[in-house]
């Protein structure tokens, strides 16, 4: 079942550091699986989630090869969310703050992410039934 409702999310944390990143992705995934659209605004360090130059790696400490380690890369998660949204027939929009991207030189973004500004977040919040800000500490 799906409907025209959307939830908006604001993420601030850079990848590979906080549990909040994984929880946020799980939450967006649960939203799409509930048949509800998701609009995501990535701000500050969170713009690096979409960088396509992220590389999975092996784990020599645990003796695992690249394939066995299956190291997750957030840009692949973003694309997977976009695929899930298409499959469920619900809207999905991922916008990176352009100024934050430029600060970090993080402009090689996943195809599912687009460049925008805080004005996009305002629009997302206006067009969604609710907004959740997941702030950094």
């Amino acid at each position: 079942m799906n409907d025209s409702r959307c939830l908006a999310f604001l993420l601030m944390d850079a990848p590979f550091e906080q549990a909040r990143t994984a929880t946020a992705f799980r939450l967006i995934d649960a939203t799409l699986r509930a048949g509800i659209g998701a609009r995501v605004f990535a701000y500050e360090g969170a713009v690096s989630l979409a960088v396509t130059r992220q590389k999975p790696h092996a784990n020599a400490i645990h003796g695992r090869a690249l394939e066995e380690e299956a190291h997750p890369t957030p840009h692949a998660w973003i694309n997977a969310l976009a695929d899930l949204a298409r499959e469920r027939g619900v809207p999905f929009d991922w916008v990176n703050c352009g100024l934050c991207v430029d600060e970090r030189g993080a402009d090689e973004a996943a195809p599912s992410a687009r460049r925008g500004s805080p004005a996009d977040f305002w629009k997302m919040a206006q067009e969604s039934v609710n907004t959740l800000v997941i702030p950094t500490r």
Partner: protein
Amino acid sequence: MGGIVTRYLLIESRDPFGSTDYVRRCELAAALRADGADVTLFLVENAVLGTRAAARPQALEKLAKQGVQVLADEFALRERGIGSGEIAPAVKPTDLAALVGLLAAGARATWN
């Protein structure tokens, strides 16, 4: 005369034993409830470390008695090895779909 009841969703992620913020959030939940609001405290990440029935202080039990709904992310519970048999009766393990449902229903949400 019945008015519109405001619904609040307080999402707590911090370790209750490592930050006084957790206690402040419980106080906020109690105050909102006392003011007549419908309040859910949703525990994620390290905040679930306070769900064990043997944990002190027993803030969650007090909140439940006051009418606050206390939910805990079952994924976070599993990650931390907290089994269903050791969780305080006041706490209901659930998945993130429940959190999505509350958001979609328009609850005023904050994340700490």
